[in-house]
C-alpha cells in the first residue's frame, strides 16, 4: 500500500511544505548555520513521517513534540536580529512545524487517558499548546515579515517589557484593581444582593423591578463613566462608582431568578417544619440560588474590570491601567500597552478562576460539579 495514504493529512501537508522550503533555500540570506538548517529539515521530516511507525501514543506524542518545537525554536532564534529578511523557506518551515503541532494536538485529543490525573493533564496540555502556538505564530509572522514593532510588537518583546516595568505595572494594578475594582465590585454586588432579597420579600417590588432590571442589562451603562468622573473626581471613587452601577443589575436579576430555583416540594417540607421566612431563605433558598449568584459574580468580575479601565479613559491621576493604556497609545509605546493588556487579562482570569474555585466548594451538591 502507498505509504503516503497511511499518513494523516497534517503530515502530508507538512511534507509538501518541507519540499516548498527546499526549493526556497536558503532560509535566511545570512544567519542560519548549515548545521541548524539541516537539523530543522531532519526534525520536520521525523515529525511528518513518525505516524508511519505506529508507535504507542505517549512515544509518538514526545517525538511530535520535539519535531514541532525544535524547528520553530531554531527558526525563531535565527530570525532574531534579521527581521524582515525571511523568505519563502522560513514561512514554509514554520507552517510545517505548525502542522506537526496540529498533528500532536489531534493525537492528544483522541488519546484515551488511563487514569484521572492523566485525563486532567491532557485537558490542560491541549489548550496550552494551542495558546503557545498562537504566540509562536505571532512571533514568527511579525519577525519574519518585518512588521514594524511600533504596530505589532512580537510576544517576546512584550514579555521583556513586562519584566522591565514591573514597578509601574504593580502601581497600576494597585490603583485600578485593588482600589477601584474591588471596592466597586463588593459594593455593587452587595447592593444588588440586598435589593434582590427586598424584592423577594415584597412581590410588588419584584414585579416592578424585574422588567426594568432586564431592560437595563441591555443598555450601554458604560456611558455613565464620564458623569461619574465629573461627580466623584479623578481618583478611584469615580471608577468604583461606575463599577457599582455596572455590577448592580446583573446581581439583582440573577439573585431574584435564583431565589425561585428551590422546588415547591422542598418549600413545602420547610413549611411542615414550621420554618419562618428567614430560616427558609437561609437554609433552603439561598443555597439553591448559589449557582445563579455565582454566575452573576463571574459576569460581574469581567464587567468590573472593563468598567474601571474604561472609566480611566475619562480622567485619572497619573496611575492606573486605563490611564497607562490611553497615554502610551498616544506616545506609540505599543509594547507597554500590550504589557498592560496582558496583565489585565491575567488579573481577569485569576479573578474568574478564584470565583470558580469558590463556587465548586460552595455548590459541591450541584449536578454540574458532582458530575465533573
Amino acid at each position, binding site marked *: 500500500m502507498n505509504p503516503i495514504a497511511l499518513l494523516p493529512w497534517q503530515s502530508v501537508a507538512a511534507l509538501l511544505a518541507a519540499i516548498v522550503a527546499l526549493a526556497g533555500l536558503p532560509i535566511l540570506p545570512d544567519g542560519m548555520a548549515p548545521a541548524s538548517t539541516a537539523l530543522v529539515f531532519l526534525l520536520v521530516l521525523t515529525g511528518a513521517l513518525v505516524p508511519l511507525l505506529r508507535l504507542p501514543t505517549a512515544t509518538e506524542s514526545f517525538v511530535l513534540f520535539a519535531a514541532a518545537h525544535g524547528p520553530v525554536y531554531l527558526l525563531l532564534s535565527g530570525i532574531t536580529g534579521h527581521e524582515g529578511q525571511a523568505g519563502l523557506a522560513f514561512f514554509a518551515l514554520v507552517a510545517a512545524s505548525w502542522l506537526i503541532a*496540529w498533528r500532536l*494536538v*489531534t493525537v*492528544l*485529543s483522541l488519546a484515551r487517558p488511563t487514569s484521572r490525573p492523566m485525563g486532567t493533564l491532557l*485537558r490542560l496540555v*491541549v*489548550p496550552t*499548546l*494551542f*495558546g503557545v502556538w498562537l504566540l509562536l505564530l505571532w512571533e514568527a509572522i511579525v519577525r519574519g515579515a518585518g512588521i514594524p514593532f*511600533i*504596530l*505589532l510588537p512580537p510576544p517576546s518583546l512584550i514579555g521583556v517589557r513586562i519584566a522591565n516595568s514591573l514597578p509601574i505595572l504593580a502601581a497600576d494594578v494597585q490603583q485600578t484593581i485593588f482600589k477601584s475594582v474591588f471596592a466597586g465590585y463588593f459594593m455593587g454586588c452587595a447592593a444588588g444582593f440586598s435589593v434582590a432579597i427586598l424584592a423577594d420579600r415584597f412581590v*410588588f*417590588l419584584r*414585579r*416592578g*423591578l424585574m*422588567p*426594568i432590571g432586564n*431592560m437595563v*442589562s*441591555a*443598555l*450601554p451603562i*458604560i*456611558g*455613565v*463613566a*464620564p*458623569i461619574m*468622573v*465629573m*461627580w466623584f473626581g479623578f481618583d478611584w471613587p469615580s471608577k468604583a462608582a461606575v463599577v457599582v452601577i455596572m455590577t448592580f443589575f446583573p446581581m439583582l436579576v440573577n439573585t431574584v431568578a435564583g431565589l425561585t430555583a428551590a422546588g415547591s416540594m422542598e418549600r413545602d417540607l420547610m413549611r411542615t417544619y414550621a420554618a419562618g421566612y428567614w430560616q427558609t431563605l437561609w437554609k433552603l433558598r439561598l443555597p439553591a440560588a448559589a449557582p445563579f449568584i455565582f454566575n452573576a459574580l463571574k459576569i460581574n*468580575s*469581567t464587567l468590573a*474590570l*472593563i468598567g474601571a*479601565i*474604561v472609566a480611566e*479613559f*475619562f*480622567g485619572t491621576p497619573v496611575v492606573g*491601567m486605563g490611564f497607562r*493604556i*490611553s497615554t502610551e*497609545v*498616544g506616545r*506609540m509605546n*505599543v509594547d507597554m*500597552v*500590550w504589557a*498592560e*493588556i496582558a496583565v*489585565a*487579562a491575567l488579573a*481577569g*482570569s485569576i479573578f*474568574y478562576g478564584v470565583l470558580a474555585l469558590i463556587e465548586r466548594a460552595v455548590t459541591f451538591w450541584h449536578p454540574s460539579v458532582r458530575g465533573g
Partner: protein
Amino acid sequence: MTDRLRDKIIPVTVILAAIVVAWYVGSYAMNAPFQRDLDRRAGVTSTTWEFVVKTMSQPKPTLPAPHQVAVNFVENTFFRKVTSNRSLVYHAAVTLSSTVLGFAFGTVLGILIAVGIVHVVTLDRSLMPWIITSQTIPILALAPMIIVVLAAVGITGLIPKALISTYLSFFPVAVGMVKGLRSPEIMHLDLMHTYNASAGQVFWKLRVPASVPFLFASMKVAVAASLVGAIVGELPTGAVAGIGSKLLSGSYYSQTIDMFAALVAGSIVAILLVSLVGLAGRITERVMGARPA
C-alpha cells in the same frame, strides 16, 4: 388583561415614577450648594420655591433634572436637521452603522467558530477553553490601540470601530451556538442515523433548526455588547462623531445635559436593536413552524 395590569403595568409604572421622583430630589440636593453660592455672590434672596426652580434650570448642573434632559433630547432629536452636528439622530446613526457592521461580522464569525468546534474534536479541545478564558479578559481595553494602530496603517472610519464590536459580539454567539448545535438529543441523532443521514444532512436538517432559538438568544446579548463596543471605540478617535464622542465632548465642557441626552439616545438605540433582534427571532421561529409555548 387585569392580570397584566396588576402584575406588570402598575408595579413598573410605580417604580419608574419613584425613580423620577428620586431623580428630582437628587438633582435638587446636588445642585443646591452651587446655586446657594451663586445667589450669595449675586446678593439675591429667593423664596424656597424660586430656589428649587433655579436649581433645576442651571445651564451646567451637576445632575440635570429629568425635564431638562427630556427637553434637550427632544430638541436635538426632532428639531434639528439630521445632518447637523448637534443632531442626536446624526450621532446615533454613526454609532448604529458601526454597531450593525460589527454585529454582522461578529455573528458570522461566532457561527463559523461554533460549527468548527462542534465538528472538529481538536478545535473543541483546544479552542473552547480559550473562548471561555477570553470572556474573562477586559477586551475593551484593546479599543484605543486597535483604533490608533489601524489609523497608523491608514485604515480609519467605520472598520476599526466595527472590529471592536466584532470582538465583543462574537463570544456570546459562539458560545450560544455551540450549545445550540449540540442541543439535539441522542434520540434525534439516532433517528437521523437510522435514516442513514450524512453528516451534512444531520447538520442542515437537525442541528441548524435546533440551534435557532439559541442563536437569537445569544444575538440579543451580542447586539447589546456590540453597541457598547462601538461607543467605547469612538472615545479615542478624538470625539468626531457618534454617541461615544458626544459623551466625551460633553465631559470636556461639563455639558451634563448633553451627556445625559446622549445616554438616553444610546439607551433607546440599545432597546430598539434588542427588540428588533427579538422580533426577527420570533418571526423566524414562526416561519419555521414553531408553536407558541
